[in-house]
């Protein structure tokens, strides 16, 4: 019996094939069961009592949740919602992948928590991986199972964003905004978070970062772990409610922003904003602050899927990059195409992820840019791997870091 809303949603697909034009996985495999209408066809065919055949599991697994099909769907079918629910069904029947299960336990555990685990990880990394020249990532020193010598993992910092924030003084005359850094910024790229807070401060805002904030839940949602997802959401909502006098919640992570905007019970009048949206609101002041300073390096931009397709944000980051680099900002061909990271997809499906990445790297190379920017830590990590795979010279940066550098330089 088809009963739940997402199963009803399946019926809206008319199999027109529009998803074939944009699906990065179909582009590489050319296989119908790997594109949205094929997956939806398979999901629709099974009723609740069927056992899940291996082909079904594989098809549902082969999805980046990049939302490309959803953005292009003439019927507006909520495809990623369907995939996430199908994955939920899969975990109910077959159990959650043990690695993901332990990772999510860490995400939720308040005592032996993710940051503690990652701090130990720092020392393990120091032994087994080496730092990349020019980049912020690491590659292995010795052979390790499942990772080849071009696999870039993020360099775990000794100090997390939270450690830096402990030393920070609150400025009483600044208007508070809530800053949701997200796990990647907190534990992997703390400098990105500091850069964002610096820009906010220069604009007259105090970024409030409650240290009890949890993972946004995106990764658990994508894995079909609805129980963990709900728990994480509830905890974050509690914190938002505690700070409900602050109406604007900003984030510099495309995936967190996408996830937070989907929360159903945000406090009254509370708004989630990507940092580019927030800055665009204050463009007059920012433009005045930057003045005629421009970054003298050629830069380009990759649209994070969860920003462009998940939140419909395309013009604000481009405005920002033009402000930073002026004429030095150039578009790549197909900036909207997924980089192939897709959360943990890049690790679990390396071969196909790398094929998708190769096209992105090619398009980036063709611009001749020295820096490729993107408003998503996941994309930045994947692009770093892309540069390494092709021996490309470009660096990867979040636009906010470029802006912070420019403002710091202007102050000197």
């Amino acid at each position, binding site marked *: 019996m088809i009963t739940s809303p997402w199963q009803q949603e399946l019926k809206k697909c008319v199999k027109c094939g529009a998803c074939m*034009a944009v699906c990065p996985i179909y582009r590489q495999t050319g296989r119908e069961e790997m594109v949205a209408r094929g997956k939806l066809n398979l999901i629709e065919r099974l009723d609740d009592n069927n056992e899940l055949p291996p082909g079904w599991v594989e098809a549902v697994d082969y999805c980046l949740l990049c939302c490309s099909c959803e953005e292009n769907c003439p019927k507006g079918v909520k495809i990623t919602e369907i995939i996430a629910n199908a994955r939920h069904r899969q975990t109910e029947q077959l159990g959650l992948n043990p690695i993901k299960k332990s990772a999510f336990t860490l995400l939720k555990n308040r005592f032996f928590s993710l940051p503690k685990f990652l701090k130990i990880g720092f020392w393990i990394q120091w032994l087994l991986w080496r730092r990349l020249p020019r980049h912020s990532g690491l590659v292995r020193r010795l052979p390790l199972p499942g990772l080849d010598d071009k696999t870039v993992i993020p360099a775990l910092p000794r100090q997390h964003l939270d450690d830096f924030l402990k030393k920070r003084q609150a400025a009483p005359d600044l208007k508070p905004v809530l800053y949701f850094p997200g796990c990647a910024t907190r534990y992997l790229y703390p400098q990105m978070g500091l850069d964002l807070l610096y820009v906010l401060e220069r604009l007259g805002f105090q970024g409030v970062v409650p240290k009890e904030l949890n993972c946004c839940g995106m990764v658990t949602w994508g894995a079909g772990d609805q129980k963990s997802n709900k728990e994480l959401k509830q905890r974050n909502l509690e914190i938002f409610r505690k700070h409900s006098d602050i109406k604007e919640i900003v984030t510099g992570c495309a995936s967190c922003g996408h996830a937070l905007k989907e929360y159903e019970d945000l406090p009254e009048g509370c708004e989630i904003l990507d940092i580019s949206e927030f800055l665009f609101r204050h463009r007059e002041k920012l433009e005045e602050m930057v003045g005629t300073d421009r970054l003298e390096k050629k830069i380009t931009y990759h649209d994070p899927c969860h920003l462009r397709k998940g939140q419909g944000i395309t013009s604000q980051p481009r405005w920002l990059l033009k402000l930073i680099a002026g004429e030095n900002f150039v578009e790549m061909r197909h900036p909207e195409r997924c980089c192939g990271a897709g959360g943990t997809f890049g690790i679990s499906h390396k071969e196909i992820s790398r094929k998708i990445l190769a096209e992105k790297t090619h398009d980036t190379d063709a611009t001749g840019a020295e820096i490729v920017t993107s408003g998503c830590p996941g994309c930045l990590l994947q692009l770093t791997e892309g540069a390494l795979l092709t021996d490309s010279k470009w660096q990867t940066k979040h636009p906010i870091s470029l802006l912070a550098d420019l403002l710091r330089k202007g102050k000197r």
Partner: protein
Amino acid sequence: MTGPVNLIRNQFVEELKNSGFTARQIVVADESRACYGYDATRQSADPLLVLLPENREQVESAMRLAAKRKLKIFPRGAASGMSGGSIPSNDGIILSLTRMKRILEIDQENMIATVEPGVVTGELQEEVSRLGLFYPPDPASLAFSTIGGNVAENAGGPRAVKYGVTANYVMGLEAVLINGETIRCGNKCIKSVSGYDLTSLLVGSEGTLAVITKILLKLLAAPETVKTTLLAFSSMTTAAHAINAMFKNQIAPSTIEFLDHHSINAVRDELPFSLPQKADTVLLVEIDGTTTSVLSQSQKLKELFKDDALLLIEAQNESEREQLWTARRRLSPAIANLAPHKINEDIAVPRAAIPTVITRLEKLAKKIALPIVCFGHAGDGNIHVNVMLDKDDPDQAQRGHRAIDEIFTITLELGGTLSGEHGIGNTKSAYFDKEWNPPTIATMRAIKQAFDPDNLLNPGKIFPDPEI
């Protein structure tokens, strides 16, 4: 699946492997086969086997081996068809040509592209446009449908009024016959009268005669610019006169799309501009070409209709052009809100008959008490007729069915045809003998027999009776 069928399939798979097919090119798994049996008509049948050949030689082997065992072959492109042209039978083999997707040559001197059938139409257009060239046919599905499918269905599009349909661009073909032999027809010559024109015969044959493996396509020089104008009229008749006036005054629009008053009402609230309440028909006109010619033609257009048109908006830039097109693009989802289901036909009539068709369809809508929404390509007489209904209500379903019957009667009475661009497939085959008399159908059958004596190639399509 029964034992013997399984056995036949296993033996056939062995033969394919011996003739050079790799395991990845042969799809046997249930879940994978299940995704190669549908198209945009929402019909579905799981084929016995799916083959993903990558070159002509493999297509030849597959067909030779299948014909020996009397197995049915169903060629398939992107399966975005609207008439069931690629729907298989459960005992048939899907020959998916999506892996044969190389652009073999773009001959800039002769302005001809040579491509494999699996090339996506939009990707070819993008490639040739980088060289300043132009492949005009523009079916709505161009971003994902394949050239092979476009040729097999003789796909059209909004630009047909000026540039014609796919058939007007196919210079030559290479195709594999059911016995595994390959024929070649046409060439790069503009003038070519050596023997029967098999190219024209294969274009639009819906995969029932041969499997196309290579296509020569005529290219044009890309137009310098395009100008979009939206016009509103108080009736379909005045709009039709306006269209005629354009042609008589040597205005050559590349596109003339129309929306009837049901369509207008469905999208009115979503438009970024306001439409006069009296507007009954909206035309969306595009003129392309050199900058000077576009300028003088659109000047003439404005002068011609300054009195008759209730509204005339000319797009001044790309974003205004997009705004005008929203009227047309929002249409499908907007009319979907009118009823749970729709029956969509793509009849075509001689251009001058459009007002009569619309009037008669309005009467029909009243008679059967179901809304009928019309829009489409006014310049070439191709009308998308949508009967809006709830198929779960048996009474409405029956009335809808009767409506289709009458729509075809009206169309044929006015000198029209069952399908302008979707093809007959299996959704309109029951009406085929309404359009053509017995000797005509017998001639078509004789052609089918000559190509495919055992009726193994895409059976069940075009002809009213599946067993010829």
